[in-house]
């Protein structure tokens, strides 16, 4: 073997090792979380309130419900704006407007989540005088917008123009063509994008620290400080109690299972047979 063949061999070997390392880390995380989490998980985790400091046992039922409430609000706020914005970008916007809106979307996508937390604190929490699930929902809703815009736009863009032309040739107005032909054709892609978007914000912690805050008890309605799963993991993980660490692992396992299940279902089942635009989730 001559030198260049040996170099060829070594370098590709190294790239293979890089890949193996990256994928290995994923499997390590999955296995470790499953091991620590499953051994810490119990039925009471899903049904009981957190135990007072010093007592063992208890669960995170309030945080599970709280996360659900915050995520529901976020979806209600973020997805319509993102979806309609995406429709505007692909179907209506001229070159100047599409540049402006796309730029704003990219900018919003790049804003660190902690910064969104501060801003929503200033806009919602500070004037209202208290932390709330409502503020948390707004923070996560803002985070959902850019990805929703991008995925809606890309999947609409992938709809062949012959479909639009056919609808218009049959006498449909532009909006009817969009609503009855173009959007249904892109629907599976848009749903996939929405699911991935949801999974991303489901694990967000930083913006919830100063919006939803947390709560050791049930919170009624949307106007009170609310416990959420990710914020609870953080609080419990950095605490000094062994039993809280155990619960943090259990909560982490539940959160990871939720996020990965949504990802796998979205990518393998819902989007089967359609080309996924890469790098937008």
């Amino acid at each position, binding site marked *: 073997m001559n030198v*260049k*063949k040996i*170099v060829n061999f070594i*370098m*590709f070997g190294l*790239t293979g090792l*890089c*890949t193996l390392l*990256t*994928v290995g880390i*994923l499997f390590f*995380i999955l296995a*470790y*979380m499953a091991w620590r989490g499953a051994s810490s998980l119990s039925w009471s985790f899903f049904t009981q309130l957190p135990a007072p400091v010093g007592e063992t046992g208890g669960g995170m039922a309030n945080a599970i419900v709280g996360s659900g409430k915050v995520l529901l609000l976020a979806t209600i706020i973020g997805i319509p*704006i*993102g*979806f*309609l*914005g995406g429709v*505007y970008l692909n179907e*209506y*916007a001229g070159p100047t407007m599409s540049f*402006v*809106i796309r730029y704003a*979307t*990219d*900018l*919003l996508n*790049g*804003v*660190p*989540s*902690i*910064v969104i937390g*501060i*801003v929503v604190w*200033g*806009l919602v929490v500070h004037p209202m005088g208290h932390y709330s699930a409502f503020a948390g929902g707004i923070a996560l809703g*803002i985070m959902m*917008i*850019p990805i929703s815009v991008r995925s809606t736009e890309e999947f609409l863009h992938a709809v062949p123009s012959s479909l639009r032309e056919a609808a218009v040739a049959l006498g449909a*107005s532009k*909006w*009817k063509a969009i609503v009855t032909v173009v959007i249904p054709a892109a629907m599976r892609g848009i749903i996939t994008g929405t699911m991935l978007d949801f999974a991303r914000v*489901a*694990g967000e912690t*930083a913006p919830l620290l100063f919006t939803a*805050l947390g709560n050791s008890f049930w919170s009624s309605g949307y106007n009170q400080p609310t416990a959420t799963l*990710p914020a609870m*993991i*953080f609080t419990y*993980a950095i605490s000094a109690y062994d039993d809280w660490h155990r619960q*943090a*692992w259990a909560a*982490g396992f539940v*959160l*990871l299972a939720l*996020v990965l299940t949504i990802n796998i279902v979205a*990518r393998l089942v819902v989007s089967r047979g359609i080309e996924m635009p890469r*790098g937008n989730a």
Partner: protein
Amino acid sequence: MTSSSIKARTLPAGRVGAFSRLASGDSVAYALTLLAAGTIFLITAIIFYELYAQSAIPRHKFGWLFLVTQIWDPVAGQFGALPFIYGTVVTSLVAMLIAVPQGIGSAIFLSELAPPRISDALTFMIELLAAVPSVLFGLIGFYVLVPILQANVVPVLRDTLGFLPIFQGAFYGVSYFSAGVVLSIMIVPFIISVSREVLMAVPREQREAALALGSTRWQTTWRVVFPFAFKGIMGSVFLALARALGETMAVTMVIGNTPQIKASLLAPGSTIAAVIANEFTEAVGDLYQGSLIELGLVLFTLTFIINGLARLLIMATRRGTPA
């Protein structure tokens, strides 16, 4: 159609433009989507404005000195951003040093060597790694990775590179170095998925021409494919850097949260995002709170510049790619 044309006729004659267009269903759809798009623009503008307006007090009190002052003392009312800017930059640099070679290496493997099916399956797994929530990286980082670093990695680094000031001093586990390693794991997936896409967009003919001239696969990759995709790969690197700068939860859990500037990577420190996460809810007084918000403004500006650079580079490759 009919209803909209009836409505259109009820408008006063001669009124054209925005109002008469609003009367048809088409215009309602147009207005609705424009409203949503406008909201996006507005939200982005409000974020910047809020950060700017809410940080007025420290901006007036400290001026540009805020950025270069080392002291962060809430009790004395002295606030300087330098320790946090330093920590943010250092942890991100450590992360990039690990993640860039690993990410580009993996991307080359996935686009140049692995058969398409295997490549797709591996890319799928790498995208799952990107989906793992940040707080879980913090959890595993603190309870698993830090002990490993302490027992196995740092002693080796000390023995081999201990003469460098960056590997001297005591190591308590939480440090710039630990934060950098955790960050590197979190940003690798972004480098891989964007770089792989850019590499796969390099035209086949480029590879075939090089192979036909007698190059090995590696020579083709290194001298032809890689330079062709270079700008796009740099774009992916900057995107990852912007993420690393703004990453909060995982870093907060492993950096030690000490506002100081130390040459040694093994010392505890803090970052912009970490100090906001730790102190914001407890910050008393307008000056303290305003200073934390000004730190948010600094972080926003930093990621804005890096992200802009990344987009430019990625756009340049897309335009530069023939057909």
